[in-house]
């Protein structure tokens, strides 16, 4: 029985941690499949987390908070597109600039508007996305196994967790089964072919960055007004980079990317549970070793030691129309 509840708790934590990861990784998927490298996922999430918490605190509405988060993130995504698509700027430099800009801007505005140091005040429960309890979840929580799974894993998450999970098949359908998706993938692999077909390469990339912005916005909001109740300095703590790692580990494809997000989140959940636990025959595993696993795996994958990852053909390359 002990083991079952342990597993249930781990799965529960994995779902919670993976939500912003999934959203950000799929944001990156749209950007990179269109040929725009985006290491600015971190900054967009951070900006969105601040805007969402600030707006939710000011208006008392989680929905306006979410909207503000999406707005901030899309604005940053549009700057990225303006620099990289319109002006053929270096995509990595631009992403880095936005990460640093967002890391500074959040605390500056938080201090000026709320006077709480570099963070927002606590957001009231009514202004947050609270856990949703499914019917009978409470009554079934004592029922062994199925009841526990239902009440702990299926029920009791905030809305954004379900939205993120629902977004995955939608995104996969959009990328692989629609005209938009075909053009998106084409513009990332062979922009000159798309251009020849009379479709605007810049237009497609701007649209992809807009989708990327929206998803990063939801990811940021999930941190500050769903999982937590305020914005604090650097609250993304490298999650945007981890999402990028998951995207690469997933070889820029939806299902493997989802799996990678779960894997990384699982490593995080296990790491939190294993702190100071003495495993028979192994001893105490350093927490940092487990925390390092996702980064190590990504390096090994990129080095071709764990399968081969190949980026979209035109990723990172500005498209200059022939004249």
């Amino acid at each position, binding site marked *: 029985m002990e083991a079952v509840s342990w597993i249930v708790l781990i799965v529960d934590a994995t779902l919670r941690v993976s939500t912003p990861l999934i959203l950000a990784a799929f944001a990156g998927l749209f950007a990179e499949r269109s040929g725009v490298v985006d290491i600015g996922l971190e900054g967009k999430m951070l900006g969105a987390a601040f805007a969402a918490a600030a707006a939710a605190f000011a208006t008392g509405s989680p929905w306006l908070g979410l909207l503000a988060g999406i707005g901030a993130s899309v604005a940053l995504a549009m700057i990225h597109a303006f620099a990289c698509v319109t002006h053929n700027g270096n995509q990595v430099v*631009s992403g*880095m600039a936005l990460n640093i800009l967002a890391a500074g801007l959040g*605390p*500056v505005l938080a201090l000026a508007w709320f006077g709480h140091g570099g963070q927002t005040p606590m957001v009231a429960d009514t202004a947050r996305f609270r856990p949703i309890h499914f019917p009978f979840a409470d009554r079934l929580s004592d029922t062994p196994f199925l009841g526990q799974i239902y009440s702990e894993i299926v029920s009791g998450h905030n809305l954004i967790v379900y939205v993120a999970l629902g977004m995955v098949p939608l995104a996969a359908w959009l990328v692989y089964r629609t005209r938009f998706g075909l053009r998106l993938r084409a513009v990332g692999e062979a922009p000159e072919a798309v251009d020849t077909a009379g479709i605007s390469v810049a237009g497609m990339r701007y649209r992809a960055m807009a989708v990327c912005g929206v998803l990063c916005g939801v990811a940021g909001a999930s941190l500050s007004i769903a999982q937590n109740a305020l914005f604090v300095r650097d609250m993304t703590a*490298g999650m945007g980079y981890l999402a990028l*790692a998951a995207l690469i580990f997933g070889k820029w494809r939806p299902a493997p990317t989802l799996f990678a997000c779960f894997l990384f989140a699982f490593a995080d959940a296990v790491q939190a549970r294993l702190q100071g636990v003495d495993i028979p025959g192994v001893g105490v595993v350093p927490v940092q070793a487990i925390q390092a696993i996702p980064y190590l795996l990504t390096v090994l994958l990129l080095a071709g030691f764990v399968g081969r990852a190949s980026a979209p053909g035109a990723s990172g390359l500005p498209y200059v129309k022939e004249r």
Partner: protein
Amino acid sequence: MSGFGGPTRAPAWVTHGLVPLINLALALAVAGVVVALIGEDPSEALRLLALGAVGHPEAIGYTLYYATNFVFTGLAVAIAFHCGLFNIGGEGQAYLGGLGAGLAALAFGDWPAPAAIPLAVAAAAAFGAFWGFVPGWLQAKRGSHIVITTIMFNFLAAALMTWLMVEVLIEPGRQTAESRTFAPGAWLPFAHDVLAALGVDMGRSSLNLSFLLALACLGLFWLFVWRTRWGYEIRAVGHNEEAAVYGGISPARAIMLAMAVSGGLAGLVGVNEIVGVHHRLLLEFTAGYGFVGIAVALMGRNHPVGILLAALLFGALYQGGSELAFDMPNVTRDMVVVLQGLVILFSGALENMFRARIEGRFARRARAVRAA
């Protein structure tokens, strides 16, 4: 990556003087708008910032101390740029450099300073170089993208350091994760102590003799990049890899060399921080200096003179920014981080927005003058 430091026909003072200044002015203007938005007076903030940076001897000392770090990380980013690589791993390489410096100082602190300090400097450079070389090797031999690998190596460095400090190197009985203080043989003298011995009073600051090391690195960087065969190979690969191969240069070797040198330079931040200031190993002493190096290299156009000026500028911003927070409680050093992001945006990502236009104008004029 021909955009970085690529050849242009415009006069040098336009490319290396006017354009960076315009980009800086734009970044300052946008930052000024932010300051105005939060209800403070931008010109007053700028005045206080300048005063806090160079207004009194201690302030100048701190400005130079920050600039020391930025010279190291700026040069680190620049050497990689010369090879067409973007090294975002300065932060992790600086962290490892500090570890190397600290381990050497712990081991050899009892030795006389003329022996202990060079050992600590060499260890810092070696550890940093290793942390840069591995991503370089992975890029050169296995084709792993350097940007992603160096990002991952930043996190790996952080995990490694946290584990080492919390579990291994912590001084027994300490609450915080810090090693024991080094024996005095491994303390790099503070500038104020040296100057006091010479009869000059400059007030106490964190400025130490690492600053001289930074100046030496600037000179050596110039020699290495423009006056040695290795530097030539690195630049050749950065400009045109295929042409370099045709010229008998091995791009893999150039990439690994550039990344090792880059990591070594970033690692020297550890000398300034660990051997120069803290005199013990601790966590998170890199404080984002590795990322500032990106802005410094972009503003300084990958040239030592430009990097020195940009490092001094950012040193002044860091020092002035922390003093500014006393006078304007609403404007903290985070404002400097905003400015740093804007500088990278304007002089890096948006460099094509104005540069081509400005340089084009001057290039035409120069041609016209020559023709006449």
